[in-house]
């Protein structure tokens, strides 16, 4: 049986915050935890925060930084916040991996992780937390997918580490180590069932377009025109408005090959090159094909998120999850809902799934979740993952 509990702290001192969150998380467990999942915001010195957690428990630890953290019904996007999920299980095993080469060689990191995971046939799921400002997550996911046996292509879900919308640096944690430009992964072994649902709540605007030229994370042309010039037509302040404000409003949506009105994966640019007229998309994943310009709509986000939770509940078939993970795009929290983020996109989901399941997550710079059987890198999306004992 798997038990879990969540703790959170917003203390100004990092060590005290880590200690407080870990204490709360470990307090209600029937025994000492087997594993800790930690998400903290960039206002903390990660070494001090992890030291505070270590002072409470020496269980293996993994996680990353986020633009905000989610714990229970609460969403906090302040620079100083930390959430800890403490898990103990008689049947499941949690194994963490840290890939420092991810930022420089994302594909190589994917292949390396796949190699590390081969040889076990009870892999139930894989949580991945890449650096949200470096690397090419799509290449990493492709390499990982190709390197794992079909039977082992377990559910891959996660979120890209973020900072406080400064787009400066993120952290990935494993035990007492905090790196930048890396990827942290947690493999879950044993009789477990992971159910994942995604939702973005974006609305297409304008007519259909095609990516006519893309190179890795750079989008060069849309319909044969410089991508930046196409975006500028929709930005109130032109390319100079391509700050978090601009990012929060506009993106590109991949059109489903099966349904032209369905947007499968949303991509968000966070930088541009005026000289080449190119738009930079972290996580990559852009390839020639049909796309639509998309805008966010608060009501659509709210309603689609609840529908996502309903689908997850239906997928569980009445089974009560041991814990739920929520990886929610940084552009869907405070930037869209202000201080009511928890009431808009956290509490309704929790209530839909029963209201008392241990709930943890963070506001990410990208979300990893499967689309048509394969893990993809998303933006503007929420990836909900519920773990149940099989």
């Amino acid at each position, binding site marked *: 049986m798997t038990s879990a509990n969540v703790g959170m702290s917003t203390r100004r001192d990092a060590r005290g915050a880590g200690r407080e969150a870990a204490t709360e998380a470990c307090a209600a467990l029937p025994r000492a935890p087997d594993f800790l999942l930690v998400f903290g915001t960039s206002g903390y010195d990660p070494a001090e925060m992890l030291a505070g957690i270590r002072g409470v428990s020496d269980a293996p630890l993994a996680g990353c930084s986020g633009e905000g953290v989610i714990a229970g019904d609460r969403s906090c996007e302040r*620079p100083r916040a930390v959430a800890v999920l403490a898990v103990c299980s008689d049947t499941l095993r949690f194994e963490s991996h840290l890939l420092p080469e991810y930022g420089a060689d994302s594909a190589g990191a994917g292949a390396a992780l796949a190699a590390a995971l081969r040889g076990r046939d009870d892999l139930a799921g894989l949580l991945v937390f890449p650096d949200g400002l470096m690397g090419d997550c799509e290449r990493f996911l492709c390499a990982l997918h190709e390197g794992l046996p079909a039977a082992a292509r377990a559910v891959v879900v996660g979120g890209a580490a973020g900072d406080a*919308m400064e*787009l400066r640096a993120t952290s990935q944690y494993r035990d007492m180590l905090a790196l930048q430009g890396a990827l942290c992964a947690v493999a879950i072994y044993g009789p477990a069932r992971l159910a994942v649902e995604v939702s973005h709540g974006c609305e297409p605007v304008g007519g259909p377009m095609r990516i006519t030229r893309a190179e890795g994370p750079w989008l060069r042309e849309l319909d044969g025109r410089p991508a930046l010039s196409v975006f500028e037509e929709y930005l*109130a*302040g032109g390319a100079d408005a391509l700050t978090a404000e601009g990012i929060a409003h506009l993106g590109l949506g991949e059109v489903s090959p099966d349904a032209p009105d369905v947007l499968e994966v949303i991509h968000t640019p966070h930088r541009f090159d005026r000289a080449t007229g190119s738009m930079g998309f972290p996580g990559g994943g852009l390839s020639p094909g049909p796309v639509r310009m998309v805008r966010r709509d608060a009501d659509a986000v709210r309603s689609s998120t609840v529908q996502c939770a309903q689908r997850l509940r239906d997928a569980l078939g009445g089974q009560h999850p041991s814990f739920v993970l929520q990886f929610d795009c940084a552009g869907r929290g*405070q*930037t869209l809902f202000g201080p009511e983020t928890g009431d808009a996109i956290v509490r309704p989901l929790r209530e839909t799934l029963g209201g008392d399941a241990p709930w943890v997550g963070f506001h990410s710079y990208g979300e990893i979740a499967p689309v048509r059987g394969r893990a993809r890198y998303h933006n503007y999306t929420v990836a909900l993952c519920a773990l149940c004992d099989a």
Partner: protein
Amino acid sequence: MSADEPEALRAEIARLQSQVKLLVRAEQGLHRARREQEQQAAMVRDLASFSRACASDDAVATIVDRALRMLDARITLDVLCAATLDDAAVIDLDAPDASDSLHDDERAWLAELREVRVTPIDDESLGALPRGRLREAVEGVRRPACFAVIPLRVEGRTMAALWLAASSSGRRTFRDDRLELWHAPFLALCQGSVERALENAALTRALGDANTQLRATVQGLQRAQEELLHARKMEAVGHLAGGVAHEFNNLLTVVLSYGAMLQELSLPEPARVDLARMLDAGTRASELTRQLLTLGRRQVLRREPVDLGAVVSAFVGLMGRLVGETVSLSARVTPSLPSVLADRAQVEQVLMNLTLNARDALPRGGSVVIGARPASARDLASVSCDAAPEGYLALDVIDSGVGMDAATRARIFEPFFTLKGEGKGTGLGLSVVYGIVAQSEGHIAVESEPGRGARFTVLLPVAPSQSERPRVSAPAPAPRGRQGRVLLAEDEPLIRHVTVRALRAAGYEVCDAQDGEEALLRASTLDGLDALITDVVMPQMGGVELSERLRAQRPGLPVLFISGYSPTLLEGLRVERRGIAYLPKPFTPKQLLSQIDALLGHGG
């Protein structure tokens, strides 16, 4: 479809797409406006919550700490400090346990600030800051950055200051909550809210102090009023009782005097026995009237320096076996006590009455402790006396008995109040104690709770030093032999008659008058006069005035006052006290003659 339709359709699509783009751009502007509105609304809510929370706070540091936490919840800050200028203490939310102080330079600089300052951090702005904690904190923030200083002034004086600093991301974010120049209006509002909270706290403190003082004053007044009422009640009862006793004494004087004269006759049995019983009853009645006069403060006191410790020790030694086998009586005397100015017999009376009262409170045995010690400030405060404690000694009678409730304590000094059954006590014991203490210019207090015994504390004035005591002169020499002419002034006919009879039977020549005026008239017709016997209170002219006027004419004339009133009246005399004596009523002929003999120097 015509050849023009595709072109028209494309144009229409292009037009609609332009409109969509316009709408999307407009939406971004609306979103920004809404977010700014929400931020401002949130700031106003924060200020309102802060003001509500600060309403009852007292300490400046508490209000300042709350202000820091409010700002921390609203603005992203790397530095969040404050200082209270009175004690130069620094409050740092990032190091709450550290005790840091302002540098003198920055303390002076902060004291002069009036307005909120929000400034980008650069070399120029840093250079304008004084050396100290503020500058160190701001220097440590990563550039580009912004800092703010908020002075908090109350009644024209800077009491505290907040200083904030934050690095800037260098790019606009939706949160916009890092400290920026545009926060200046909000910080100015914050300054106003905190200053009002500090002012309210100061006013609340002052009001609280005033209320406390007022409450103490009111309580003191109430206590004094209660004591005054009690004293007046006691005085009224005492006057009434004393007045009755005075009249009664006059009648007893007649009864005892005639009874004494009858005793000198050879009466047959059973008349002789009946007469003895009648005189015994009269003597007991005179004892009762003496107690009534005591509580009416009309008895005679002979105040002199008394060694209180010795009195207590002797009393305990004498009474130790008499209080009962189940009651232990002990003394607790502080060594080397000064003397008190009191009537020794009355002090012993007080001890007796209080000890008997304590014994009665120990139906199943227990202990009684009698103590003598210097009075304390607490003793004097308990009786609402402002005098210095050095002027008093305390006499304690402490029992481990059944105790008294508040209702009983309020009445114990009332005459005739008793908790004993009918016929088992007069209820005058503690009233007599009260009268003696009051007449001795002392105080008495009682502490007791049901089941927790009782403690009576009598405060007696310390006797002045030897040189301060008034000299009492020896009586003037009187004629030898029981001969002489005596002038008697007494307005009560029965007393006058029996006194004249007793004096003449003893050999004196007596001239009597019914008041002072008549006595003066009679005296003017006498060539010689050896003594004046006079009542004190008489119509037309009282005994004191009579004695003054006669002694003016006949210096050194011996005077014997016969009365139930206190000799304090005599202290008002502007004459020497030589040759003046006092005989309280009721008296027997024998007592009268004994006083006259002593006054006139006759043997016997």
